[in-house]
């Protein structure tokens, strides 16, 4: 035992100066703050086709001809956000005759497996275009680079550390998400108000940036951050944590880096007999409905699932040889507010349906998304 402790001690020493990725990058923060304000190009009301910035890439010379096979290496469908997104994607396919075949392989949340999946697709998939939703950025970079050598690649959600893909589809980003929520809290409350920050788990890039941006704004506004706790995305744990904080003191606002457990957090206030404070949630139906039912003061920043549609659209443009926004296709990232709340509520949809799916007009809606 002692040996082990010494070993881990040594590990600790060797690690302390490292801390690799920087999730509090002022430059990126400023860029995303700006993008939130920017007027997107493209057709209004169809945010999945819109883009921020002017960069375009030509695809005619990529040599793909319709009809073609699109292969998709998916990090996983291991959470409701990805489930909604993947449904968007498969439904979008129906709109594109140029995509003859769609091959989907699922890495079930493992980097190692996703690398192997991409290798499999390259070895025998007969793919013409590949879409990759990387499980993690750094780990998948080499695999994506190899795929780039064989065919055009489109990456979305998380990026990769290479510019070889035709384009990288993503909304504004994590800083933007954090900014929207925290600015709302700051505008609703006075200086010195008590804010509880609830986070899913450490280390996930898209979540870390939300937190760092949120914290920066809250601190700048002079809020008193009573705590920042990890909930593991677990309802029961979320509820327990909030109950414990309520036993110990006051809470004026709850900021969350993702909304899946927002309703559990709200219930903790209800069950303990407290007023529901200012809330930052996300675009899940259950939160939006609770918000409306309880007449809460709240905001729902989003990380729109319509980007999964955009990935297919980008692939279709590659096949058809049309130009598309690139090398980054930055999608707008609207937040749901009191004003437009009722537009997004649909009682027919399941509780963890992400309202900002851009899917309401699609053919299979709502059944394909689990609605009634």
């Amino acid at each position: 035992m002692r040996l082990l402790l010494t070993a881990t001690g040594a590990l600790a020493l060797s690690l302390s100066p490292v801390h690799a990725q920087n999730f509090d990058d002022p430059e990126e923060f400023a860029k995303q703050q700006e993008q939130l304000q920017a007027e997107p190009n493209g057709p209004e009301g169809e945010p999945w086709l819109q883009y921020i910035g002017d960069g375009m890439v030509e695809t005619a010379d990529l040599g793909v001809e319709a009809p073609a096979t699109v292969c998709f290496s998916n990090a996983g469908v291991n959470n409701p956000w990805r489930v909604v997104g993947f449904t968007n994607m498969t439904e979008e396919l129906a709109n594109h005759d140029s995509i003859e075949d769609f091959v989907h392989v699922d890495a079930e949340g493992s980097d190692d497996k996703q690398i192997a999946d991409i290798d499999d697709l390259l070895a025998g998939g007969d793919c013409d275009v590949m879409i990759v939703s990387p499980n993690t950025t750094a780990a998948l970079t080499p695999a994506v680079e190899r795929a780039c050598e064989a065919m055009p690649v489109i990456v979305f959600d998380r990026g990769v550390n290479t510019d070889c893909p035709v384009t990288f589809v993503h909304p504004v980003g994590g800083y933007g998400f954090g900014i929207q929520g925290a600015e709302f809290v700051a505008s609703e409350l006075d200086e010195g108000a008590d804010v509880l920050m609830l986070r899913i788990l450490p280390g996930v890039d898209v979540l870390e940036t939300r937190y760092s941006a949120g914290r920066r704004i809250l601190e700048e506004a002079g809020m008193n951050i009573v705590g920042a706790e990890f909930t593991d995305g677990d309802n029961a744990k979320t509820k327990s944590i909030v109950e414990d904080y309520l036993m110990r003191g006051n809470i004026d606002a709850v900021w969350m880096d993702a909304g899946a457990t927002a309703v559990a957090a709200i219930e903790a206030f209800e069950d303990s007999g407290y007023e529901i404070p200012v809330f930052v949630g996300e675009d899940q139906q259950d939160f939006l409905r609770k918000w409306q039912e309880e007449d809460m003061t709240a905001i729902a920043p989003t990380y729109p699932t319509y980007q999964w549609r955009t990935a297919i659209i980008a692939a279709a443009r590659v096949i058809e040889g049309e130009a598309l926004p690139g090398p980054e296709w930055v999608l707008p990232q609207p937040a749901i507010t009191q004003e437009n709340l009722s537009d997004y509520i649909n009682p027919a949809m399941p509780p963890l349906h992400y309202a900002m799916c851009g899917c309401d007009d699609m053919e299979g809606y709502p059944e394909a998304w689990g609605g009634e």
Partner: protein
Amino acid sequence: MTDQSAAPDRKRRRLPQINPVWVLLAVLIAGIVYMNPGFAEPTGYMNFLKRAAPLAILAAGQVYVITSGGFDLSVGSLITLVVVGASMLTNNDPSATYWVIPLMLAMGLGVGAVNGAIVCFLRVPSLIATLGTMITLNGLAFLWSGGAPRGYLPDTFRFFGRELIRDVPLVRFIPVSVIVLIVVVGLFAWLMHRTNLGRMVHAIGDNPVAARLAGVPVNRVRISAFMLSGLSGAIAGILLGGFAGVSTDVGAGYELEAITAAVLGGAQLLGGRGSVPAALGGALALTAIFTLLNFLGLPQPVRQVVQGLILIAAVALAMHRRKRTGT
């Protein structure tokens, strides 16, 4: 090894007969109260019991399987399946609760029966058998719901995990889940320590060959043990779903916590010894450890380290005591 040696042995054993898990629990509770006097208020300890209830019920079920000589790794996934399934079936209809809850309990029993049957008839060791069902049930929960919860649980369903009974003398209020805890653990304790089933479970875990030759219906008893564990999983699922609503990973990790709780309570891995009240003590102690670490402001990683150390220490201590008393 003979009669004469037994007499002094008995005298020596009278004193430390109290299960160390209760000492541990008392120390932890004292620590929590010291850190946070509010814990001694009904809100404090009732919340604590409410939170510990699902784990305590699971541990009470797990102790049957452990005492019979096996493991049940499938309960975590079963919880998820129960919560997801209940949300699919009730479909926001409050009146559906009355048939969905019995159905879920039956499903727990059914899953246990399948586990037991795989072990008894296919002769797959329970570690592998329940690992298989763990993966399968998790997949089923996702397959059934399509990967994300499809519905809400009506308040009638959530009553057991969420509501309080107010205006109770002495303690002001009692969460319904604490009543469920008392009833279920009481029932499991009675079955284990006051019925033939309990003695048979001990016998097949101690020496299955001898039990079979003595006429014990080994398969029936083993399957019963797995069914009780499955039932405890279903009940824990109903409480967890009630407490916090639907999600697709409610049960993750509960199987190992349940085994840890049972082991803390002195249940002997590979069978022959186990106590339901002590498993309850183990579950409460484990929850108390987590609560204490939370109050101390220690982060999740420290919780893991402490849990690991306690697990090893508890079993090492038990082995040491067993060696010393020569039994």
